[in-house]
């Protein structure tokens, strides 16, 4: 095994082992650099991290860690997946083209809340995750949650604008991977 790894190895491990992503479209330069380092030496890193029981996974423009065997119970994962389904559904209702690279400000969404009853009711539904009553506060907290999980990134503090990172694709892929049997599918209203 090659022990001659780049000096960024530690930084890469720090980010990935906390369950975060390294995305190609991050606006932080050091993250983009980590991405290109990973891209150049994927095989070395894969081997290296496998030895310490992490599987380096490569998605569409993002990297993340998984394990060869589960360390937490299924209930917890289901809870997280449910939360993401609700949250992504909210953002996709806001704009069906919402996806990696999408730029927005919370005020864009709040303006729409006032005129879009469906969007409003979906934000109400997210209160159980944000435990905030006021729409603006609730939305802010949800966005912060996604920033912490590394799916969004604040792009400009002055204009309060955010960007969906390429890791957002992970959530989309996760949802697409859930298979709905045909007979169930037929019963779902259009």
């Amino acid at each position, binding site marked *: 095994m090659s022990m001659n790894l780049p000096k960024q190895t530690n930084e890469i491990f720090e980010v990935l082992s906390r369950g975060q992503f390294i995305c190609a479209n991050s606006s932080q330069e050091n993250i983009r650099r980590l991405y290109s380092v990973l891209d150049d030496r994927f095989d070395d890193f894969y081997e290296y991290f496998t030895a310490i029981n992490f599987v380096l996974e490569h998605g569409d423009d993002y990297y993340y860690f998984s394990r060869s*065997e589960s360390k937490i119970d299924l209930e917890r994962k289901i809870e997280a997946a449910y939360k993401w389904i609700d949250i*992504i559904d909210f953002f996709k209702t806001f704009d069906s083209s919402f996806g990696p690279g999408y730029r927005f400000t919370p005020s864009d969404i709040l303006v729409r809340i006032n005129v879009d009853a469906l969007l409003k009711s979906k934000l109400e539904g997210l209160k159980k995750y944000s435990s905030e009553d006021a729409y603006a506060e609730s939305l802010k907290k949800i966005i912060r949650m996604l920033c912490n999980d590394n799916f969004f990134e604040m792009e400009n503090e002055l204009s309060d604008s955010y960007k969906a990172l390429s890791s957002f694709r992970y959530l989309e892929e996760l949802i697409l991977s859930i298979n709905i049997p045909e007979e169930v599918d037929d019963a779902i209203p259009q």
Partner: protein
Amino acid sequence: MQYFHSAKELISALYRERDLLSELFEKRKIPFKEEYALELVEYSEERLDFLKERGVLRTNAPFVEIDDQYLQFLETILDVNEEINTSFINEHILQIKQSILYYLQENHESRKYAYVRSIKASLRKAGRITLRNIMDLNRNIEHAFKTEPTYAVKIAKLEHYDRKRQDITLLLDQIERLLGEDEQAFFKSALDEELRQIVLHIRYQIIECRHNLIEIQKQIIEYLNQIKYQSRVTEHLRRIKHLKDQFELKTKTNIHEILSRNNAVIFEPNPSYPLKLSLDYLQTDEAWQSILRVGSKVTNRSGAPGLPLAVNIADDYLRNETDQEAVIDLDAVRNSFFASGNHLFGFLLNYSYPREVSFEEKVTIFCRMVSLFEQELNVTDTYNRDGEIEYAVVYPG
């Protein structure tokens, strides 16, 4: 319907109404009311009618618009047409073919020359129009992808543009064949310096067009894929969300299986790594500094570890202060009363107290005397009045 008799007449008519026509051209995509048009021709209905009769304007009550012929002319000349029209190119190709045919049949030099001229003009135009069309196509595709809100229409538009792209590719093939194999005889015999330049130029244009078209094809495929992916995600998400809201997601889909296979670290809580210190490290100078820093923190807290300290008691609270109050000694009052021989209420009213005493207080003192010394007093059944107050006459017992 009347007609313009000469180009001069047409141009001067257009020039005269240039304000109206340019305004109408700028607003060609929105309905323009005839009354506004009148304002631009100084309210002269005749001038407006003149244009209408000659088919420059067309009324569509209550709106007025420039006739399509003129509109197309302006759009083509000003390079602002949004429609991609491949028939123009086709037309020019046919014309070139015809002219070549005439040229080859014709024996008369001057007529031959006229045909060559028309061929040159058509070749120039064909090249320019093709390039122009490709640029329009590129812009329209971008526009459709970025601004069209309806998915179905967006896909239909992009597919339509893709067909246009194929048409243009075919036409390019035709032009290329025309210049190469098909009309070798003509290009060999009629090749003068100008025609050679034109052919060279159009070959460059064709190469440029082809590169652009390949790029456009890539773009369309990418856009279509993106749209299809997006709509697939959106549609799937809608169903998943529906099942989730119906509490059926766990039972009706394979989410259990998917998630039990998924061991991504993102699902795990934030890890912390509490590691023991290296003993070797603790021996170093660097560690010594850290130990000193931690040590000073520990001694600072050693006074009352963990207990919150109250603030000092202010000196004011500790200073001695005397507060004087004159107290009426009821025993002394009783002794004086026994010596006086007056009845109790009368005695209390006139008694000399150690401080100022109000009437109400004197009444209170009367009541307290009676209750304290009841055994030693003789409370008679006689009642006297003093103002509002009625009191029993009390003597020493």
